[in-house]
């Protein structure tokens, strides 16, 4: 290829190619009806189970903060699961690509493999957010017996869920790329997911945690990803909103840096490894 002088691609080209990936992702989403049903089903059942749990707990004792109630806790879970269930499990696809060698093939394409993969997943993410938001949050309203005390939080949830899901997506990508070094990515994902459970307060709000743990959690990307979104169910103070937005922006930036470094390092290993 060194002899020919290929025309430099137009700057819009890369953008259009990326957008094409996103469209592909969206189209593939429409085809998988069974997966939709499964996700929505799980969403509803988990809300049911936890609504019972919180009902029982709150019936037998009260928590200090008047913002907390069984209904509010159900809304908390509805919000965190909204982001989590909408995020495609991109790490599985990446692992499969690396194992099968497809990654090497896609290195030659004009759009970087990672960017293409992310665009595809983002294309799938948006329709999921819409459908799961409508269905899941609607169901939450039924189970929780109405809207949260301070519904303003739900309005802010709309932009925040997009960023939270995006951060999750980026983190899953980083997890997936460890396939370039490790035999099995599953365990890495589980540990990360447990981080989401514990430090992100995926199911149990950080509010219940000992203060020290809560403070530590906010130094990690998990808390803004999940707790920052979920606590909108309790209302939205300016301080909390700023904290969430800033933390999300920070960790998204960090994730992008880590991703590009990781991909460059990993791919170098692939190329020198031959095959």
């Amino acid at each position: 290829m060194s002899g020919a002088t290929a025309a430099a691609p137009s700057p819009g080209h890369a953008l259009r190619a990326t957008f094409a990936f996103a469209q592909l992702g969206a189209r593939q989403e429409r085809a998988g009806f069974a997966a939709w049903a499964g996700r929505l089903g799980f969403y509803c059942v988990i809300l049911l189970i936890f609504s019972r749990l919180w009902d029982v707990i709150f019936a037998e004792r009260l928590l200090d903060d008047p913002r907390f109630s069984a209904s509010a806790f159900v809304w908390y879970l509805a919000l965190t699961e909204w982001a989590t269930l909408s995020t495609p499990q991109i790490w599985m696809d990446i692992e499969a690509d690396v194992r099968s060698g497809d990654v090497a093939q896609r290195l030659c394409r004009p759009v970087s493999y990672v960017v293409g993969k992310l665009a595809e997943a983002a294309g799938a993410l948006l329709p999921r957010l819409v459908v799961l938001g409508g269905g899941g949050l609607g169901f939450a309203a039924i189970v929780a017996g109405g809207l949260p005390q301070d519904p303003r939080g739900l309005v802010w949830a709309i932009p925040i869920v997009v960023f939270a899901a995006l951060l999750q997506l980026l983190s899953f990508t980083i997890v997936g790329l460890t396939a370039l070094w490790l035999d099995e990515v599953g365990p890495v994902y589980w540990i990360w997911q447990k981080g989401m459970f514990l430090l992100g307060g995926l199911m149990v709000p950080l509010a219940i945690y000992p203060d020290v743990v809560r403070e530590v959690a906010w130094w990690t990307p998990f808390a803004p990803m999940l707790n920052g979104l979920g606590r909108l169910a309790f209302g939205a103070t300016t301080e909390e909103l700023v904290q969430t937005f800033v933390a999300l922006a920070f960790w998204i930036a960090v994730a992008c840096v880590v991703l590009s470094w990781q991909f460059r390092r990993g791919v170098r290993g692939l190329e020198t490894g031959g095959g």
Partner: protein
Amino acid sequence: MTSELRFLAALVETNVKACLALRGAFWLQVAGMALNNALFFVMWWILFDRFEEIRGWRLEDMLSLYGVVAAGFGLAVVLGGGIRDLARTISDGDLDPMLTQPRSVVVQAVAGRSLATGWGDFASGVVMVGLSGYLAPDRVPVLILAIVLSASTVVATGVLLGSAAFWASRVESLARMALEYSITFSLYPPTLFHGPMRIVLFTLVPAGFIGYLPASLLREFEWTTLGLAICGVSAYGSVAAFVFGRGPRMYASGSRFGVRV
């Protein structure tokens, strides 16, 4: 009969060998799963630390429930790891070589794979049961019984869910998710529920037979509980065997390139 047993033993031996063939991956999965379970349980620990008891359910009860489910699931996927991806096996046409061999297809499909993570689940499950305080030396046979009951239900559920692939297309991830959900739901204390929800957890989703009943045998052994558990497992097993048995006449095979792992 003995020939069937010898075949089963040989099959299990082969797929455990296959599992161990990738040494690094094996240990990574075992450790990862054990850590995974431990971390998940921390959430419950936090909850119980704050709220001491939930409807009569205490941390020790939660430990024993979780331990039995983890150990049961672990045993199920060590010996019958094929259940996790059964739907995919069917829809990819990977049943072909099993259908041409003179052995039971469901045995080959289920016992033809061993998942390394199962060892991690099993180990962490047993440890949790130990920590719960419900395990006394004379209780060990009961624990074994509970784990076997739980594992059998898991396998039956996996076969039943995976069989959906005989009749529907593109259900591979749904079937796998559904199996994982069944396990998830068996990890919540059933004292939370009453009425219709409770019935669902014992019929549609066999959560009660994977977790609650076997675990309660540990806490307090009662013959009626055992009888109920055995009935439940047998019922699920029969339905699963029946449904899977009707599958092959719908089987459409496939033309993908396949490998046997």
